């Protein structure tokens, strides 16, 4: 299967968007080569602003650009925005509902060798708790391109979470990306894995394996964490009566929390959250870290067995 990092797709999508819409401007904080905004900078130098190592000022400047009618896309690593520039995201962008897109790459532990200081395990939790925010966590390159297009059409603040590591391409080019609508990637009746971002691929692998044992697992791809597709999640709870969540993020405050809150309110069934178990990461290869922190298909399989038992 072909593998592309979502940040690569982001860089390409920005150039495409820049051609279509002259109001799109891009800001980066000295990481343009890593976040891939550099391609936009090459194509549209007058609409690209490197703000240096100053993420707070980057978001504040973006707020001013948006207030004057521009559509700024800001990029850095997720630890720095929302992380370092959280107050600017909150007060200068989200509160006045300004049309700023914060597209953070290097989210999660698959940052790899740089270690815990650069591995954001809490960004979804931070942004989720802020009113007015839309959150996209694309699963692959195709979804990333569509999320970028969708973000440009939304009049308001959007957070897009991107990864460093190459991940499998799951979608055909013509699939329909609807903000706020979860995608049923695979039908099943015994349990549902509700996954986001790069964990969708792991979920599909897990479902495939479990099918061999005769366990029919549904896979839901929640590319939009906020607003959450409550309807599709409740349907999965009602129809499969057992849920596993999967995210490359702390199990506190991210997709797992969002799903557990929703399921508890509407249709209580066993839920098991697979994610980073409330710890910081460390240096290692992305693959080693996914293994060590329990984010591989095998961990999802074990989790499905667990909820499957609880449901009986």
């Amino acid at each position: 299967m072909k593998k592309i990092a979502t940040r690569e797709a982001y860089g390409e999508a920005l150039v495409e968007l820049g051609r279509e819409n002259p109001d799109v401007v891009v800001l980066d904080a000295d990481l343009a080569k890593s976040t891939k905004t550099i391609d936009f900078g090459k194509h549209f130098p007058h609409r690209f602003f490197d703000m240096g190592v100053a993420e707070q000022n980057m978001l504040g400047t973006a707020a001013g650009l948006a207030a004057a009618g521009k559509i700024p896309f800001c990029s850095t690593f997720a630890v720095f925005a929302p992380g370092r520039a959280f107050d600017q995201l909150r007060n200068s962008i989200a509160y006045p509902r300004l049309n700023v897109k914060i597209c953070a790459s290097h989210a999660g532990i698959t940052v790899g060798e740089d270690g815990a200081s650069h591995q954001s395990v809490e960004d979804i939790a931070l942004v989720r708790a802020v009113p007015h925010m839309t959150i996209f966590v694309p699963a692959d390159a195709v979804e990333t391109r569509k999320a970028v297009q969708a973000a440009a059409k939304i009049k308001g603040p959007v957070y897009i979470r991107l990864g460093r590591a190459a991940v499998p391409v799951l979608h055909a080019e013509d699939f329909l990306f609807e903000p706020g609508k979860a995608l049923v990637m695979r039908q099943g009746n015994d349990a549902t894995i509700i996954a986001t971002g790069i964990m969708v691929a792991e979920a599909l692998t897990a479902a495939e394996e479990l099918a061999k044992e005769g366990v029919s697992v549904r896979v839901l791809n929640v590319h939009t964490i906020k607003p959450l597709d409550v309807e599709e999640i409740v349907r999965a709870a009602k129809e499969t009566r057992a849920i596993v969540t999967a995210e490359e993020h702390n199990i506190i405050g991210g997709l797992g929390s969002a799903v557990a809150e929703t399921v508890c309110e509407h249709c209580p069934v066993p839920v098991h959250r697979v994610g980073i178990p409330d710890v910081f990461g460390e240096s290692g290869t992305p693959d080693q870290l996914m293994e060590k922190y329990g984010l591989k298909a095998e961990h999802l399989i074990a989790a499905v067995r667990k909820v499957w038992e609880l449901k009986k």
Partner: protein
Amino acid sequence: MEQEKIAWLQNKAREIRTHIIRMTAAAGSGHPGGSLSAADIVTALYFHLMRLDPQRPSWPDRDRFILSKGHAAPLLYAALAERGFFPVEELLTLRKLGSRLQGHPDMKSLPGVEISTGSLGQGLSAGNGMALAARLDGRDYRVFVLLGDGEIQEGMVWEAAMAAAHYRLDNVTAFLDYNGLQIDGPVTEVMSVEPVAEKWVAFGWDVQVIDGHDMVQIIQAVEVARQVRGRPQMIVARTVKGKGVSFMENQVNWHGAAPRPEEAERALAELAAQAGLAPN
């Protein structure tokens, strides 16, 4: 500049100060000290220096004013109301449930508020963004930003200062309301910002130091700033916290406390007595 216009502006500033006292007294909370200290600057901007049309608050070519020290909201609201952006009567709804006059400025609720502020240190960055947009769009509007002296202790201010010079934003003119007092005491004791003019010079700005209560100096400084090419401009305005009300002047306790009814009465009587007495 003719004497008559200066006297008119001085009197307008006095009216703005009167509103500030009435509003904070009615609200029972708010920030009179830093609103009074910057009243002359904001009056000069809204009633003489800025290109504005209150009937068209979203006019793309308007000059922008950003109150980075958002706690001086009563000052901004008084200027906007007096300038005709919304009814003057609405000023007394400050800080009340359902009011468009939020405790700190909310751009979504009130026409004329260019950006929401309140969390200190963020206004200059937003101003830079607007200035960059002006350049992209080929528009000649100017962005004015008012910073507090305590506020410039925020690191983000210096990120923005660096960026404005780097991008040669000569359409950005900032004022520092240098009243010397912040919540915990004198700025020099809490966290000195000196040498302040030299800091802005070192960051690549054109810097002027003026008396922030002298209408002529304020206007002349902006006229000088307009002629600067290739650099943003900082006008360090020496001011008195609580200016215009004797018992509030240079008193740190009036940073974030509203006058009680009898105090408001005294303050209003003092301001009324200043009518026509402003030195020309």
